[in-house]
Each structure stands twice: as C-alpha cells, then as structure tokens.
C-alpha cells in the first residue's frame, strides 16, 4: 500500500504532469470505450446492458468517494454506503412525494449528504487509522438499522413507485426511462465529477491532503489546518456518495435498506482496491469491471463471494496499484516516447 499510495500521491507530479497526464489519458480512453459501447448497445437494441452500465457508473461514484478518503487522505471508510443510501432515500422521497424534478432531488440529496457528512465527519475525524475504519463502519450500521426499522421509510420493504422523470438541461431534455439517454447523461455526470475531483486533487487542497497522508503531525507547521482539511474532504466524499445515491432511484424506481448495508460499503472498497487506489479513474473502471463480472459469475454459480474475494485478495497482495496501476507505467512510457519523438521531429 505504501507504494500504491505513494504512487497515488506522486502521480500528479510524475514526469508527464500537465493538463493531460497518463491518468487523464486513461479517463479519455474510458470515455471513448464507453461511447463505443453505447453505440453498439443502442444499435443492437440492448437496453439491459445500457442500464447495467448505468448502474455500474452510479456505483463508480460511490467508489470514487471511498477513493477520495483512502487514496488521497489515507482514511479507510467502511461505511460510505451511509451517504449513498441517504442520497438515494432523499432523492426517492423528493421524487415520489415532492416534485418529479431531477434538480430538486439531487439538490436535496446533496444538502442532506453535506449535513450528514459534517456530523459524521466531526465524529469520525476524532480518530484515525483503524479506529476511523471501525467508527465509520459502526455509524453506517446504526443508521442502516434505524432505516430498516422505520415504517415511514418503508422499513425492510423499502420504497417503490418512484416515477421515471424528465431531466431538463437548458434546451435539452431527456427521459430517465430511456436507457441510452440516461446512460449518456450519467456518463457525462460521472466524468464531470471525475474531472472536478481530479482538478481539486491536483490543486493546493489535494496536495495538502497528500501531506496529511504522508505525515499529519507536520502539516500544522506548514501553516495548514489538518483537521479542517480532513473534515472538508470527508464532507466532499459524503456529497459525492450522496449524489451517486440520488441517481439510483431514478434508474431502478425503488430504494431499499440494503443500499445502506455493509455489503454496499464493502463492495465499494473492493472496487477501489481492484481498480486502483488513488487514481479516481481506477474506481470507475473497477466498478464497471466488477459489475460485469458479478453479472456473469452470478448467473454461473451462487458462490460468487469466493470469486470476488480471491480477485480482491490478489489485488491487495500483488496489484497494489490496482488494474489502473498496472496499466499506467505502460501508458506513461508511451507518452514519454511520444514526447521524445515529438521533440526530435520538431524543426
């Protein structure tokens, strides 16, 4: 992990640093592949795969929020599903009982996520290391149980009957019931969140986080408030998780307390480790990959936990930088070669 995290931390400062470094190339590649996939799926009329991919992107948002904490700040959250589920429930309630407005639902989910993140952050940031992991785990567990027992929130049955809505984007409008347009919309949103977070992590804010990660005790001597930064990134992660959660009921038309369970948090951590800690694009790719894997393996055997568990453990031991980490050196070499080549051919 040290290597993994050091890579993560030093990535923005790698030789190819600039507006388009290797990770960003990977993001563009991902976008291109996703668009090709969308085109193929659309022409063959495969709504299911588009919607499955949309779900993968939604959970990619949750994984990115785990990565913000783990990869950039060194805090392992085992309870990120709390904010994902919160966003999902708030969005579901707004859409069903309030107004069927995308902006109102996501706005409310974001506000709730920020508020809950502030409370949770103040509690969880009292401690660090494994204590942080266990306290986030406990927090999520308590909230999940409360939701499971609250009749007003549908209790163990969850809430069904969330309407499909139209999203208006200025002159454009799209229907969440249409697999292609909703996929493209969620893809755009995910990439926008990715770009925003990647920018932020490259900015002074992200570099302070890297410093906290490396040695928290020294940060105050540099004139930064470590606690404030940790709280800020915790709230930011909660907002990203809540935003992704808000999209879930728009896709599936229901929410259930299982969205808040440890299962969901654990899956997000697995996704980040398999995809690549501290890369942001890794969790996105990991989510897509694992969703596809589960869909295939799940139809083949009910013992998918063994399959996913083995892949996960192998990633922890051997692929310390995840799949993206395994790809990156190769991409960086190519980029460097191209740069050399470019210099030579210049007049």
């Amino acid at each position: 992990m040290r290597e993994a995290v050091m890579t993560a931390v030093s990535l923005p400062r790698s030789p190819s640093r600039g507006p388009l470094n290797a990770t960003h190339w990977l993001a563009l590649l991902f976008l291109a592949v996703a668009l090709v996939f969308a085109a193929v799926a659309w022409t063959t009329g495969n709504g299911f795969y588009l919607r499955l991919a949309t779900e993968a992107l939604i959970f990619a948002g949750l994984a990115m929020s785990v990565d913000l904490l783990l990869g950039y700040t060194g805090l392992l959250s085992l309870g990120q599903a709390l904010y994902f589920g919160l966003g999902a429930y708030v969005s579901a309630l707004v859409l069903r009982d309030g107004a069927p407005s995308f902006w109102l639902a996501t706005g409310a989910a974001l506000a709730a996520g920020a508020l809950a993140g502030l409370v949770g952050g103040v509690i969880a940031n009292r401690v660090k290391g494994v204590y942080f992991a266990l306290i986030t785990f406990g927090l999520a567990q308590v909230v999940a149980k409360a939701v499971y027992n609250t009749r007003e929130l549908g209790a163990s049955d969850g809430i069904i009957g969330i309407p499909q809505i139209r999203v208006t984007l200025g002159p454009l409008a799209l229907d969440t019931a249409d697999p292609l347009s909703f996929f493209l919309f969620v893809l755009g949103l995910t990439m926008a969140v990715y770009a925003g977070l990647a920018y932020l992590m490259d900015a002074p804010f992200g570099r302070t986080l890297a410093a906290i990660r490396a040695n928290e005790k020294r940060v105050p001597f540099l004139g930064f408030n470590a606690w404030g930064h940790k709280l800020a990134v915790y709230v930011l992660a909660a907002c990203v998780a809540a935003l992704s959660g808000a999209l879930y009921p728009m896709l599936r038309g229901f929410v259930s307390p299982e969205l808040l369970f440890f299962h969901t948090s654990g899956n997000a951590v697995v996704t980040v480790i398999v995809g690549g800690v501290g890369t942001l694009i890794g969790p996105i790719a990991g989510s897509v990959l694992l969703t596809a894997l589960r869909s295939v393996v799940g139809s083949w055997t009910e013992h998918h936990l063994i399959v996913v568990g083995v892949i996960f453990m192998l990633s922890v031991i051997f692929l310390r930088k995840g799949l993206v980490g395994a790809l990156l050196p190769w991409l960086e070499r190519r980029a460097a070669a191209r740069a050399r080549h470019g210099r030579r051919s210049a007049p």
Partner: protein
Amino acid sequence: MTKATLPATAALALLGLAGGASAAEPIRIGVVTPLSGTYAPIGQQVRWGLELALKEVNAAGGIMGRPVELLFEDEEANPAVATQKAEKLFQVNKVDFLTGTVNSGSTLAVGQLAERNDRLIATTVSFSDAITTDKCSPNVFRVNARAGQQSAALAEWLAKDKPQAKVYYLGPDYEMGRSTVAAFKAAAEKTGAQSTGEVFAPLDSKDYSQYFGQLRAARPAVLYTSTAGNDTVRLLTQMSEYGLLRNLTVVGASGTVTAQNIGAIGKAADGFVTGVGYSAELDTPENKAFVAAFRKAYDAAPDLYGADSYGLLAFYKAAVEKAGTTETAKLREAMRGLQWPTPQGLKTMRAGDHQAIQDMYAVRVTEGRFTIVGTVPGEAAIGPDLCARF
C-alpha cells in the same frame, strides 16, 4: 464491461435472427431467488420444487406442445440485485414469466419492474399482506397463502383448542415481524384470547434469555412468535435451556419453524403450532405422490415453499393453455379466477387482488413432523379484497 458484453451482444443478435417463434420454441421462465445469503435455504426449496415440476411438465409434453425452460439467477435476498437480475431475464433472456422472489422487498421491486416491462410475475414465498393489498400490482400474482390467511387459521385453532388463552407475543423488531404479530393479535383477540404483553427483539438477536424475565412474569399459557430462520433456533432452544417450554404452548408464523431449521431446533420444536397452507403430512394421493417424488429426487422433505413453487408450474400451464398464448394481457385475464391443481388440492386465484384462495391448516410439530390438527376452508381464511388498484 464493454469487452465482456460485446461478444454476448453479438451472440444475442445472432440468436434473435435465428430464433423466431416456432412451435418448438421453449417457454422460458425466469427464477430470481436467493441462492446465497440469509434466505439461501428457502431459495433451495424454491429451486427443488420448480425443477421437480419442470421435469414432470416436460415429460408430459410441455405447455401447448412447447418445452419449458427454467433460468435461475441468484438475487442474494437483496432487492437491488433482484431487479438487476430480473431485468436481465426480461430483456436479454426474453423470459415469458418470472418467479422465485422470497423477501417482500424483492417481490415488490421486481413487481414494479414487471409492470415497466409489461410482463407477469408470481411469488411462491413472500407472505407480506401488502403485496396483494395496498401495494398490489396488476402484474403480480401470489400463489401461496399470505400472512392474514395464516393467522386466521391459527386463531381459529387457538379458539377451539385453548379457549380464552392468555397469550404473550414475541416478535422480531422489523416491519414484517411487527405486522405479523399485530395481525395475529387482532385475529386472536376477536376469538377470545387475552393478550398479556408483547416484546420485540432486534432481528438476528443472539440471546433471548434477556426477555425471559418479562415472559415468566406475564405467566402466559401461549406464546406467539414471528421469528424466522436462525432466530427461531435460538429462541426455542434457549427457552428449552431455561425450562420455559414446560406448560407453555408456542405458536407462530408459518416461516417460524420450517424444514430448514427444524433439524437444528430438535426436540425444542415439539408442540409448536402454526397456521400454514401446506404440510407434507397431508393425506391426499396427489400430495403423497409429490412427497415421494420430492424425497426421491432430493433426499429431503418438501416444505410449504417447495410445495407452493412446485404448484406454480401447474398454475402457469393451466393459464397459458386457457389463454392459448403467453401474451401478457390475455394471460392475465386467464389467470384471474383460474383454478388449478396443487399437491394441497385445488387453489383459486382471486381476480380482485391476485391472491390465491386455498384451504388452510393448523399444524403441530410432533417428533419433527408437521401433523395437521385443524383445517379452515379457503373462503373462511381469505379475508376481504383490499386491493384498490385494479
């Protein structure tokens, strides 16, 4: 994902070209059921019941001359997984019908998905009243008995066997546990039972001994519980440990003591009474043949889940043959009011709420077997039609 799905997509496109609805084209039935997780034991009975029925239906020439195929998907007892798998079955595998969901959250979520895909589903296990009352759906049918039918049967037995009994209630503290207790309490009080107190323990409680003080103090003659699975194993064996089962009759929901946990409960299950729509001890030729075939195939006795899932194929077959098609709107009409044969006798699908009407039984556990101690005719147990949507 892209890499993995592209060949699949291409293959499907080819299949679509080569297919077409010829006479020999199989009828596909999707089964989304928990094969892993907490409810895996129930999923196993669902699978066994359906597979046994499949063998028999296909051996007898299929449905309208078409062979039947079952496509299983593991839903992990998680509605979020269930909808994803159900959507795959509907859209990729193009199943004609879908069944298998166990927890009511999954049944409700998949029911909504069926509406959006214009397909029909049936549950053979979920017994939450909501599915065929306030949250009923025109695309969802239930071939098993719901909680209301079960408590009606149990309350009637209680009134006859232990008139004016003092009853204490112990339920798991979640929606299903509380509503089951409330339903039985209402039914029992109507027939003269006195309530002496109630307590709700968290789901997955480890130790029930902390409630035994209150239970003892209330001095009830009957304890009603709506725990299930492992919770029941712990509750009953711990009660037996503390000597509480002497002079106390324990009654409960149909899912409280089942074929899955009765082995682990052992002697502590003896004397337990429940209201249920099926017992392997049912003395009819149809049931005897079914139990024998089931035992031969799986070396285990069928329980209500296995029997109701087995009966589902007969329901679907009868409906398709009546409608002459698998097309949704016509099939729905055919299913409404349909009568079909099952191991436990003829069942009728009530048109107004898509709830099966069937004879109900009070059964008592005697040396590990469910013996029938009372019968309530279907019409008496069913209760009013509370579905307002259709």
